[in-house]
């Protein structure tokens, strides 16, 4: 199978994951697995920056402790940290240079059985939200084409994260919509209750609840709930 064909298949697979019962962790896990295959790496991981600038591992090809440590370690030094700082891919850094730039990271890399590491940014418009890290047991070099493929995969990861955010925002708004509908019904029922028990018209009933709510610093919704379940009498409302 040609590289182009393999790449196309990966994109189709990832696109399917994006739409069908989307789970961001599954998605990133598939992404790291396929990245390793396409770019002849031996392990991969995705890290994201939190609002305080701390990196967190969100996906990796294995749960091997040394791999996770390698990823975490880069909060101090390593290709990911440099990648996040510059917004550019950090690839093909030779062993000698790596030892000089990231001595602790390079020692840990060797301890983990790897000889080289690459980092590709997860870009969102002008900022960098995280990075994909590739680890190789040989001193591998990525061609320009490889870097382009890696960047395309990283961009897909960013799309997946945006999708996750969009889905969760929709859920939040839908819940607000439900709550607003529930409130409206409750308030109308409470108005009706007051019309019956105090002989008020609909506007007076609402005014009474609103005044009480303001004075007692509770929401109109809460006042309406108490009126509807009759734990708040007309006299109490008026005395407030």
């Amino acid at each position: 199978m040609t590289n182009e064909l393999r790449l196309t298949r990966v994109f189709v697979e990832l696109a399917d994951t994006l739409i069908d019962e989307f789970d961001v962790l599954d998605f990133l896990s598939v992404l790291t697995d396929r990245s390793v295959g396409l770019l002849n790496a031996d392990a991969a991981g995705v890290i994201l920056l939190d609002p305080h600038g701390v990196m967190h591992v969100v996906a990796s090809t294995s749960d091997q402790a040394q791999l996770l440590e390698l990823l975490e370690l880069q909060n101090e030094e390593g290709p990911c940290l440099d990648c996040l700082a510059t917004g550019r891919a950090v690839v093909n850094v030779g062993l000698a240079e790596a030892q000089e730039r990231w001595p602790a990271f390079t020692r840990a890399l060797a301890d983990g059985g790897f000889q080289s590491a690459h980092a590709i940014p997860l870009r969102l418009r002008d900022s960098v939200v995280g990075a994909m890290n590739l680890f190789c047991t040989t001193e591998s070099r990525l061609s320009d084409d490889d870097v382009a493929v890696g960047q395309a995969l990283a961009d897909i990861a960013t799309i997946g994260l945006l999708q996750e955010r969009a889905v969760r925002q929709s859920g939040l708004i839908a819940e607000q919509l439900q709550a607003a509908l529930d409130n409206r019904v409750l308030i109308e029922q409470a108005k009706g209750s007051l019309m019956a028990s105090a002989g008020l018209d609909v506007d007076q009933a609402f005014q009474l609840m609103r005044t009480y709510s303001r004075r007692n610093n509770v929401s109109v919704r809460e006042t309406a709930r108490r009126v509807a379940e009759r734990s708040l009498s007309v006299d109490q409302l008026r005395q407030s």
Partner: protein
Amino acid sequence: MGFRYLLDGDAGPDVAPDPGLLLLPGDMNVTTVTQILATIHGQSGGGTSLPDLLCMDCAQTLRLTAVGMTLTNTAGHRTVVGASGLIASRVEELQSDVGEGPSVDASLASRSVIHDDLMIDSGARWPIFAPAAVAAGIRGVSALPLRVGGVRLGSLGLYRSSPGHLDDAQSDTAETYAAAAVAVLVGLQGEATETALHPDLAAPMAYRAVIHQATGFLSVKASLEMSEALLLLRANAFAADRPLVDVAHDVLSGQLRLHPEEKEDD
């Protein structure tokens, strides 16, 4: 997982989700949802709400007699927010009045409901709705649930004057309209404040507000639970063959007395 906050709206760069990308369930055709949204947005501005425009567009595309969109709250109270025309609005309101019908079922059970011909085998399913809908000129019905994840928002009801059902391709298209309807509802409410309804959704709600007021009124006058008071209103509307809204008005104005005798609670 500790990283989820990274995906929150206030963390990192602010990206407004493209309404066309919002929540497309299953194997939805993304382009088509986007196309529907583009079409109805293109027609908006003439005073017709987006939910109405979506229903009209859906009826036209699928050659249906009527299409209606209804919001449902957690207690099952319904508000018709969109209709392709008068019949759609009547058939949807009818289901809200009698508390049964394909839209009610779709919204409650969160699944699609199909009935090919209301003149056949519909008596057990919808004893009140079916004959009334037939009288309004409706034979074939289907209804799709509108939901976002686990949140049930309501239903999209599809009605035709002849018996039969949508073929597979049409069903897919209907599903796409349901996804677009969700995007419209979420999009509208996304523009509103957290606790209030968007005006396009609040205005239709005002129409049935009187029913909830009469429910509260009756619950006090007859010492009933809200749900029992609503049933009493419904039973009266059904017996008198009148819209629930009319009965509610009469109860509030004192023209109609449904409670046996005056009771003073407090």
